[in-house]
């Protein structure tokens, strides 16, 4: 029995093992995912450099991920603008000049709310769908069948989605920024009586020229991360219908966490 148990004949004391073992397991899992994602991206890169990716499929994916997401992104960003504006009004009324609200709304929408909320919406609308779709193809042997007829699933299914994500997210974030600011401005006028000119005056006063670039850079990073993780998780699905469900849940968590981590890394890297 103990012959199979590595802990039986190592010199590491048991309490230390209890601490080290989980660390080792996590490190192993992280390394496994990192390795697989690296291989996936390498194959995607090769598919592009060898011009094997269909332009039509990229366009189709941009439509699915981008154009079809516009309504929900508009609603989300609008609500974010409304909330920020109301909260700012509640916090600041009477203490600072009201036109500062213009800056508060604009900067929080462009720097944080626009990119992050759009990405979170896309995790649900696009990421989960990709994982479930590829996962189903995996467990029903359709991925195997593609290989068997000499087709490359990475070239056909993965590569177009990743580029489409990189194209679609910045466009969506642009729309989100616009709608967030407009909704915030309208709310400020309604609830605090702040005129549009004062709002814009405040917005311009604290605006840095790189703020928009920063917002778009975030969008590019998210647009790359979402399909990449979704595809990676989909292709390692096993265990039938239940497996697809579990894998999709884990994929959503993985994508959400990654977005929040990327978001937290942005200020030290770029500001």
């Amino acid at each position, binding site marked *: 029995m103990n012959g199979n148990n590595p802990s039986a004949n190592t010199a590491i004391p048991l309490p230390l093992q209890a601490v080290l073992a989980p660390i080792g397991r996590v490190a192993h899992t992280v390394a496994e995912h990192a390795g697989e994602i690296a291989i996936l991206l390498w194959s995607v890169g090769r598919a592009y450099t060898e011009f094997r990716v269909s332009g039509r499929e990229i366009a189709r994916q941009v439509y699915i991920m981008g154009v079809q997401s516009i309504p929900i992104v508009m609603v989300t960003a609008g609500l974010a603008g409304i909330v920020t504006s109301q909260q700012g009004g509640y916090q600041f009324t009477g203490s600072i000049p009201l036109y500062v609200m213009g800056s508060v709304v604009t900067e929080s929408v462009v720097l944080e709310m626009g990119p992050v909320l759009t990405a979170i919406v896309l995790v649900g609308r696009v990421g989960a769908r990709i994982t479930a779709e590829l996962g189903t193809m995996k467990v*029903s*042997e*359709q991925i*195997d*069948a*593609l*290989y*068997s*007829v*000499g*087709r490359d699933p990475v070239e056909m299914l993965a590569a177009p989605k990743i580029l489409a994500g990189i194209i679609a997210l910045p466009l969506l974030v642009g729309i989100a920024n616009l709608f967030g600011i407009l909704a915030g401005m309208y709310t400020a006028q309604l609830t605090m009586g702040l005129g549009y000119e004062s709002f814009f005056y405040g917005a311009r006063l604290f605006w840095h020229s790189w703020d928009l670039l920063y917002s778009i850079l975030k969008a590019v990073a998210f647009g790359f991360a979402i399909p990449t993780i979704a595809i990676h998780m989909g292709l390692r699905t096993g265990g039938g219908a239940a497996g697809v469900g579990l894998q999709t849940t884990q994929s959503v968590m993985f994508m959400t966490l990654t977005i929040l981590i990327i978001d937290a890394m942005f200020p030290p890297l770029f500001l």
Partner: protein
Amino acid sequence: MIEYKGVYKAFDEPVLSGVDLLVESGEMFALFGPSGTGKSVLLKTTLALIVPDMGDVCIDGQSAYYGGRGTLEQIREKVGYVFQYAALFDSLNVFENIRMGLPKSTLTRMTEKEVAHKAWEALELVNLEPRLILSKLPDELSGGMKKRVGIARAIVGRPEILLWDEPTTGLDPVNTAAVERLITQLSEELQVTSLLVTHDVEGGLEMCDRVAMLEGGRLRFCGTPEEFKDSDDPVVQAFQDRAAAYAALDVLDVR
């Protein structure tokens, strides 16, 4: 020619523990074995759909795993694979599914009309009515129809080698006969090499030049159908008649 050289594969436990098997060119070869012994796994290692932990598979002398860049693509082009559960692309209709069976290099040289003609032909070979079914989605087909569309997809590119994973399981007698005739026809008229995994022992013995039996991760038997019938191995015998099968329940200890 298909050559399995010491193919070893373990998932949680070893499934294939060193399988050596040679299927000659133009041969019809049947592989029997109890459920879950790794017959499908072995077939999948041929096209690297499952990569063995050790060992190699050679197609006409070309190594699937050590053959260098492009070899695997060449192998996949000349080998057709009939999946146990059809594995049709469920977002594509029957015609598009069969179209996928044609190698990309062939497709670029063909007009859409020629492709349609080939698909039509392939469906007729598996006893399906092309007119009624070409534009249907896999979800709209019965299990047996899916299976035959899967066969049509595998044969439409006229592969030199065909791997059949239980092509007749779940088919009615008439369609079983049709598929069996198709397998025989392909091998006799076009000298296709066929490796056939089947639970229909009688049919396999009748059709094939040689048969083998996989059990416990290894080949328990490999020889001609006559030798198979005369074998005094109880496990081999169990595959031939029901009485022996009941006796084998004790030998294999499957209860």
